[in-house]
C-alpha cells in the first residue's frame, strides 16, 4: 500500500507537467505558483497562487491541473475528491521563481529580476544573452501581464524580463 507522502510526491511530479500556456517551457512549480498540497482521507487540495490577477491563462492552468491530477490519482484511490483553488494569500512575487525556473526563462530570452527586489528600489536586470547590466527598460508592460520589454545596449538585443513583483508586506506577521 502506498502512503500519503508518496502520493504527495506523485502530485508534485504531475504538477511539473503543467505549464503556463504563454510560457510552455516553465512549469507551475518552477514559477512558484504552487503554495500548498494537502491530502487527507477523502480529498486532495491544491492551492495555487496566480502570478497576475488579470492573467487570462489562469482558468486554463486550473483546468489543466484538475485534469492531470485526476488522471494521476485514479491509480491510487479513485474515490479521492480533488479541489484546486486560486488564492491571493500570500501574493505571488518574482521571488518565488525557482533557480531552475530562472535558468529556463533565461534560455528563452527572459531575464528574471533580482529576487530580493524591494519597492522603490531600482531593478538589477541582466541581459539574458550577454549578461550585461547596461540595459534600458523600454516598456514595463510587455506581451503578457507578467513580462516587461527591455533593450540591451551592449549586444543590441531586445529582450523580456519577468516584471519585478515584490510584496510590500512580506515581513509583516498576520
Amino acid at each position, binding site marked *: 500500500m502506498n502512503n500519503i507522502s508518496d502520493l504527495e510526491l506523485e502530485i508534485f511530479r504531475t504538477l511539473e507537467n503543467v505549464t503556463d500556456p504563454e510560457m510552455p517551457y516553465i512549469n507551475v512549480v518552477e514559477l512558484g505558483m504552487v503554495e500548498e498540497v494537502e491530502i487527507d482521507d477523502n480529498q486532495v487540495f491544491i492551492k495555487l497562487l496566480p502570478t*497576475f*490577477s*488579470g*492573467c*487570462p491563462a489562469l482558468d486554463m492552468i486550473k483546468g489543466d491541473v484538475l485534469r492531470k491530477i485526476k488522471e494521476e490519482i485514479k491509480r491510487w484511490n479513485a474515490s479521492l475528491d480533488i479541489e484546486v483553488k486560486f*488564492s*491571493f*494569500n*500570500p*501574493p*505571488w*512575487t518574482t521571488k518565488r521563481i525557482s533557480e531552475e525556473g530562472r535558468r529556463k526563462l533565461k534560455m528563452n530570452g527572459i531575464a528574471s529580476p533580482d529576487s530580493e527586489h524591494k*519597492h522603490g528600489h531600482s531593478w538589477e536586470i541582466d541581459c539574458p544573452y550577454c549578461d550585461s547590466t547596461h540595459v534600458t527598460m*523600454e*516598456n*514595463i*508592460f*510587455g*506581451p503578457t*501581464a507578467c513580462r516587461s*520589454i527591455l533593450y540591451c545596449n551592449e549586444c543590441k538585443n531586445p529582450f523580456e524580463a519577468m*516584471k519585478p*513583483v*515584490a*510584496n*510590500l*508586506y512580506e515581513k509583516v506577521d*498576520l
Partner: protein
Amino acid sequence: MTKDNKYISELIYQLADDNFIHSYRGSEWLGLAPHIEEDVAFSSINQDTMGHASMYFELLETLGEGSVDELSHNRKPKDFRNAIILEEANGSGTYLDQPEYDWAFTVIRHLFFGVLKEIRLESLNQSSYEPLIHTSRKIQTEQYYHLMHWKTWFTQLMLSTQEARDKMEQAISRVWRDFGGVISLGKYGKEISDLKLIASEDELRSEWLRRIHQIFDQVGFSIEGNPGMEQGNGRNGEHTEDLTSALNILSEVYHSDIDAVTW
C-alpha cells in the same frame, strides 16, 4: 444577511464597480492609444484592472451576492455603485465609429483614480474584514506600476507644449468637478468606516489631496478647494446614460447566449 455584511457588500460593490467600468473605458482605447508602446502598456493595465474587479466580484460571490458572471453582466445600471466620473465616455463617437477620444481626460482620470486607489489599498491593508486585506495586498503589487505609468504621462504632458498644457489643465478642471464621487463612500459611508472596513471619507479625501498637490507642485500647478460631485453620487445608484450604453456593450455577448457563458 447580517447588518455588517450589508455594509461590507456595499463597500465591495463600490470597489468592484469602479475597477470594472474604469477598465472598460480604458479598453475602448485599444488600437487608438497615442502610440504602439502605449497600446501594449494600456491594454496590460486594463487587463490587470479587470482582474481586480473580478477579485472583488469573487468576494461578493462568497458573501452570497450572486455569481461573478451575474454580478458583472446581469445587473441594472441603478444597481451599480461606481462613481459617475469613471463611467463617462472617453469622448464623442464610439471605438468603432469616429472615436474622438480625449487623451488628456484619460490621463487625468487615470492619475486621479490611481492615486485614490493606492490610498484605498493601503487602508484596506488594515481592514477589519480579512478577505479585503489579502485582496488589497495582491492588487498593490500590480497597482504600483499603473500609478507610475500615469504619473509619467502627466508630468511629460504638463511640461510639454502650451497646447498640451492647456488641454491637460482643462481636463483637470473637468475631472475635479466630479472626482468627489470617487472619494465618496455613499450613504452608508459612516457605517462602513465605523466598522473599520476602510478609512473614513474625510481621511481618504485629505490624503488624496495631499498626494495630488504634491504631484501638482512638481509641474507648477495648483488648484483650490475640494473636488466636487456635480453630476450626482454613483455610490447611491445615480448614473448617466453613459453607464447604460457601456453596460449594454459589455453584456451583449452574455445576453446573446446565456448557455454559451457556462460552457
